């Protein structure tokens, strides 16, 4: 369903040369949770996120990683610290054969450590079902490398860098470039600037493939100002009427945003100063230092403010260690986790406050079906407590979404800015995703200039795209002195490094690269008892140009002009500079020497070394030409090494020394005679190289 511009797949092509790009969600394909997307191109395999499904437990919660070989993954990129994006990471790093490299931003790494430690503690499943232990988590920290926003890294030819995603602190969108093809993975992102995070950046480069989240599908969010005003108004109302305000939130991420809003609101409303705000989460307290430190990953406002005072040092908010430290006397605001009131402190507080109509609860995040938070949104008459008791629900219930996911407006704007030829939707519930897909297709229906292919693969289903491999090489140095012209010939060394090609003259190699040319010389000794003359004779049969020379008083032969054969006592030594051709010559010489050694021919019977007899050649030539053109055509006299032949009144001159044939009148004739002369010459002379 998802193949574009199909080309005959060549099974011969090695993976690094193939043009096929495969994107395969192993999780978060038409679902929310356990994000994990695999990208394969040019023999590189990259995994983006490795989360768990919050609704499932144990091995079931993992993405379908059994469909790939963990040791083949070169690179693992984690977008942010939410469990559905990094929850399976310790397992993947510690319990599989993964040996690639893993990257995340500094803030993500710092929070990941504490968030998962908390997750291990609260997940109350049996130890045998646990995917990993605290020790595994600790060990996995060693394997995670950090990357700064905009910092470019390269791992085995894959170049990647990240942009601010605006979802939570440290959330990143990864741009990955392999062999010139760019893929952008947004992770979760939000284009709306809020109190501490900046809006997701719009990358300056256009990706060829955009993998984008679709959590909110075609929904459109309420404006930030309205939303905040509604929120603070509600809180104010509740405390004004003498009630207690409960805000169940997830410990990290949006909670910090709410804290900033409340702290600022309290600051501006001195009349509220005696109403305490409590924040009950030890995890958040642990991670507050991270928020106070990584202000550089936040927005301009915070960065400016840090010059004066750290906004994450709250003036009006106190931390609450546990419910035992809480004196429930009069109006207050309490933020407590978990966000969906499944259990824990937020549930306890809810149960003790829900019967008083003065109190109020504000649900501030995304709620999953089946949780208490989702249930009370339907405004039931009564609720069931953890102990099974029925309680009347009298307190006010409100829902204000502070979720920092992109909505349709932002998504559409983002896609319009990116104009990717291929769009892949992940991280969205099936129906939402379908709606988003059709909405985008509709948006670009009448647009002839942009052609966007939208894919929404299910888990484990691959999207196959083809990118024509455009290979360009840079010609540099002395090879590039002349500008390129039609028919210009280039010979040189092609250096291929991480999908980039450079063409250099061999002499420039050390100038432009760190590579060095070297020479290897060889000396091979072998047993030989015969005489050098005998060897000379045999070698002459192999190659016509054997030279007898003297090297430091030793007799030697030079064969093929490359191989030196030096005679020693009962042996000969071969010397040559190694190269494939010379090695072959040397092998041939060795064979001849072995043969000569075993032949046992005495010196006397060695036939004289054949030499080219010039007279003999002239005679043969005359005879041949007479056979070709008739006796009359060939002149019988040789004038200064020149022989003349007259054919049909056209005179051909043949130079006997260099076998050059000249005939100004007839080129065909000249060619014919040249061929004949050369062939005759070659057949009469000994072999030469």
């Amino acid at each position, binding site marked *: 369903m998802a193949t574009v511009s199909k080309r005959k797949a060549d099974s011969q092509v090695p993976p690094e040369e193939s043009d096929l790009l495969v994107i395969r969600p192993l999780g978060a394909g038409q679902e929310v949770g356990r994000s994990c997307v695999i990208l394969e191109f040019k023999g590189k395999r990259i995994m983006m996120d490795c989360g768990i499904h919050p609704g499932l437990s144990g091995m079931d919660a993992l993405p379908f990683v059994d469909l790939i070989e963990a040791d083949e993954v070169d690179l693992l990129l984690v977008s942010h610290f939410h469990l559905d994006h990094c929850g399976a990471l310790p397992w993947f790093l510690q319990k599989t054969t993964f040996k690639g490299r893993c990257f995340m931003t500094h803030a993500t790494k710092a929070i990941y450590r504490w968030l998962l430690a908390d997750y291990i503690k609260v997940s109350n499943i049996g130890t045998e079902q646990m995917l990993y232990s605290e020790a595994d988590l600790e060990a996995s920290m060693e394997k995670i490398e950090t990357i700064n926003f905009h910092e470019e890294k390269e791992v085995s030819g894959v170049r990647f860098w990240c942009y601010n995603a605006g979802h939570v602190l440290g959330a990143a969108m990864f741009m990955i470039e392999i062999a010139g093809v760019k893929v952008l993975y947004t992770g979760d992102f939000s284009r709306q600037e809020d109190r501490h995070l900046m809006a997701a950046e719009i990358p300056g480069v256009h990706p060829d493939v955009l993998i984008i989240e679709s959590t909110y599908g075609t929904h459109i969010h309420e404006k930030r100002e309205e939303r905040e005003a509604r929120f603070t108004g509600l809180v104010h109302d509740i405390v004004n009427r003498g009630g207690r305000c409960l805000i169940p939130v997830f410990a990290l991420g949006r909670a910090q945003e709410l804290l900033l809003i409340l702290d600022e609101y309290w600051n501006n409303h001195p009349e509220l100063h005696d109403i305490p705000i409590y924040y009950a989460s030890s995890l958040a307290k642990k991670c507050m230092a991270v928020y*106070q430190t990584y202000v550089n990953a936040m927005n301009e406002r915070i960065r400016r403010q840090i010059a004066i005072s750290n906004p994450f040092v*709250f003036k009006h908010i106190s*931390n609450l260690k546990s419910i035992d430290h809480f004196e429930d006397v009069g109006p207050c605001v309490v933020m407590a986790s978990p966000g969906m009131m499944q259990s824990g402190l937020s549930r306890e507080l809810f149960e003790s406050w829900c019967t008083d109509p003065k109190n109020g609860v504000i649900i501030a995040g995304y709620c999953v079906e089946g949780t208490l938070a989702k249930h009370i949104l339907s405004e039931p008459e009564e609720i069931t407590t953890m102990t099974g008791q029925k309680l009347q629900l009298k307190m006010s219930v409100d829902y204000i979404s502070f979720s920092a996911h992109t909505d349709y407006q932002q998504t559409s704007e983002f896609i319009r800015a990116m104009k990717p030829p291929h769009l892949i939707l992940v991280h969205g519930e099936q129906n939402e995703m379908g709606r988003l897909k059709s909405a985008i297709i509709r948006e670009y229906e009448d647009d002839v200039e942009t052609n966007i292919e939208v894919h929404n693969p299910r888990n484990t289903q691959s999207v196959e795209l083809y990118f024509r491999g455009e290979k360009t090489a840079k*010609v540099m140095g002395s090879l590039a002195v002349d500008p390129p012209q039609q028919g210009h010939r280039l010979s040189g060394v092609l250096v*291929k490094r991480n999908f980039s090609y450079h063409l250099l003259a061999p002499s420039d190699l050390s100038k432009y690269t760190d590579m*060095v040319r070297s020479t290897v010389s060889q000396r091979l000794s072998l047993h030989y008892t015969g005489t050098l003359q005998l060897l000379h004779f045999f070698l002459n049969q192999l190659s016509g140009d054997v030279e007898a020379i003297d090297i430091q008083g030793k007799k030697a032969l030079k064969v093929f002009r490359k191989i030196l054969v030096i005679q020693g006592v009962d042996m000969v030594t071969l010397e040559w500079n190694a190269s*494939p*051709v010379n090695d072959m010559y040397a092998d041939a010489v060795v064979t001849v020497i072995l043969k000569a050694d075993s032949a046992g021919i005495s010196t006397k019977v060695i036939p004289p070394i054949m030499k080219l007899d010039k007279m003999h050649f002239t005679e043969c030539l005359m005879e041949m030409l007479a056979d070709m053109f008739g006796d009359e055509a060939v002149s019988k006299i040789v004038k200064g090494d020149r022989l003349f032949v007259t054919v049909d009144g056209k005179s051909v001159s043949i130079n006997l020394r260099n076998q050059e044939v000249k005939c100004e009148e007839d080129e065909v004739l000249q060619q014919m005679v040249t061929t004949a002369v050369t062939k005759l010459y070659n057949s009469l002379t000994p072999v030469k190289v």
Partner: protein
Amino acid sequence: MICFRCVECVNKSRHNSENFELFTLDDVDAAFDKIIQLKYNQSISLKGKGQGISVTPLAAGHMIGGTIWRIIKDGEEDIVYAVDFNHKKERHLNGCVLESVTRPSLLITDAYNAAYNQARRRQRDEQLMTNILQTLRNSGNVLIAVDTAGRVLELAHMLDQLWRNQDSGLMAYSLALLNNVSYNVVEFAKSQVEWMSDKIMRTFEGARNNPFQFKHLQLCHSLPELNRVPDPKVVLASSPDLECGFSRELFIQWCTNPRNSIILTNRTSPGTLGRQLIQNPNQCTVTILVKRRVRLEGAELEDYMRKEKEKELEAAKLKAEKGGDMEDSDSSEDSDIEMEVDIVGKAKHDLMMKTEGKSRGGGFFKQAKKSYPMFPVREEKIKWDDYGEIIRPEDFMILDINPTEDENKENREENDETLQDITEVPTKCVAVSQTLDINASVQFIDFEGRSDAESIKKIISMCKPRRLILVRGSPTAIDSLASYCQNSGLVQGKVFIPKLYEWVDATTESHIYQVKLKDSLVSSLNFARAKEAELAWVDGEIVMVEDEYLIDLEKEELKKEKEEVEEEETGSRELIPTLQPLPTSLVCGHPSMFINELKLSDFKQVLLRNGIQAEFSGGVLYCNSVVAIRKNEAGRINLEGCLCEDYYKVRDLLYEQYAII
């Protein structure tokens, strides 16, 4: 950001003692808006005139944010600007990454340290430690002259760690950081952890405690504040050259007492007091100019007042002439007053911040719920007194007050007044020449955080620049480094030593153009691996092909190269040089090449792995005692042996080490 603070501090400290009118704080702010922030390894491509040039900062060590700049033209010609780098890992910073830059076409570096070798870090640390301990035990004070925001972090971090160490016995003494912006410097350092060393990162991730959340280091912003820190104490004060700032003031105060100790950490520029002391360690007296900002008094004050009045009148006149009505001039006066208030507020704020910082030390949330010392009365919230200053109750809300601080409270208020006076009352600068006896011990301990001569040479030999420009450094240092680089063959091309204002023509004839490779060509190639690259010999012929398919990037690059292409219409057809294979009949052979540089010791490992006995003897590697491999001076490898199977086995393995094309 750090630079900002630094400039600000310099400005302030100058202001305290002399008239400084080169630029104002507003200029600093304005300049700051024009600066583009980059992360390490973030490339930025220049637009317009600089088209085709991309700039990348690389970590340089030395100071937080220290950068080596890499400027790349068309992806090939790279110029590296590296001065003041430090390749060694420090407590708070990673070493520079210059080694990873290979074969830049031009390296610009300094010879500042080319004739200087520093002691080992451990030794320097010990020296500092002993000096501090001895002085403190003698109940003397230690002044460490450092810069405002860079190297001070290394020292502050180191000393705070030392103080934390139970065995060091330093807990009883005080440690203070004194400069105009010490609070800000430390706050900034806290938020810059991701720029620091891996070790700091790890401790932060692991333990969540910010390494710059100091336990023992007290932050001071003025001398009176410092006076409240009990003696004996160690004070980190700026500036390092003792020419201005608190370090100079403390030096004047302390140098006469033989029990005190003064530690200089930086060889500052020649001519400064700091440098003078380093060069003449046995100097007994020093004559220095003591500059001070004093209030105008008597006639001078009257004169000043009159002038101010005239100015004001003139300004008002100007306004009126311009046609501004009364309201306008009123508002300008208003703003004047506001400005003044602002200044007062600032001075005050600076002080208050300190107490805030202290109370924050323990926790990040408000600590106790019932901690309001007063019943909140609304009228008190916004109160303007006769002097026009706002008193905010929060400023006085001190949570965990140390008893000592309580005692000092009155003191402080007095000080506040004096401080305010200085800013409000017209002042002038006076300079008095004063001769001081130096009785205190003066010692130079290198905490500059720069690579020394030996390391610089090593680093240059690793990155093998094609050409080199040397700047900054004494002539002898520059010459020695230049001759070293040339004689040892590290730099193949030229070494330039430009003088001030001298132009260097470092143009290279770089010929470069792009060709497209035909698939048939690429598939016909036999690639051989060498290091991380693959090599192949190519025999090809250029054909000019019309092609409309061009990815943007390519188009841009081509545009640059072909300047003759005048107009680029989108979708226009361009001639692309394309390389196609030569027909085999036309290919003339080429001498084959062995590419790579073999290390015999590495090759020994290869042999052993393949079950061949290998042993070194007199620089010759003997394999299975029948084949010998030696390397001569020219780097030529010689393989020697008699005809046997091992010979060919070893040869095959040897060939595997090379890319043979």
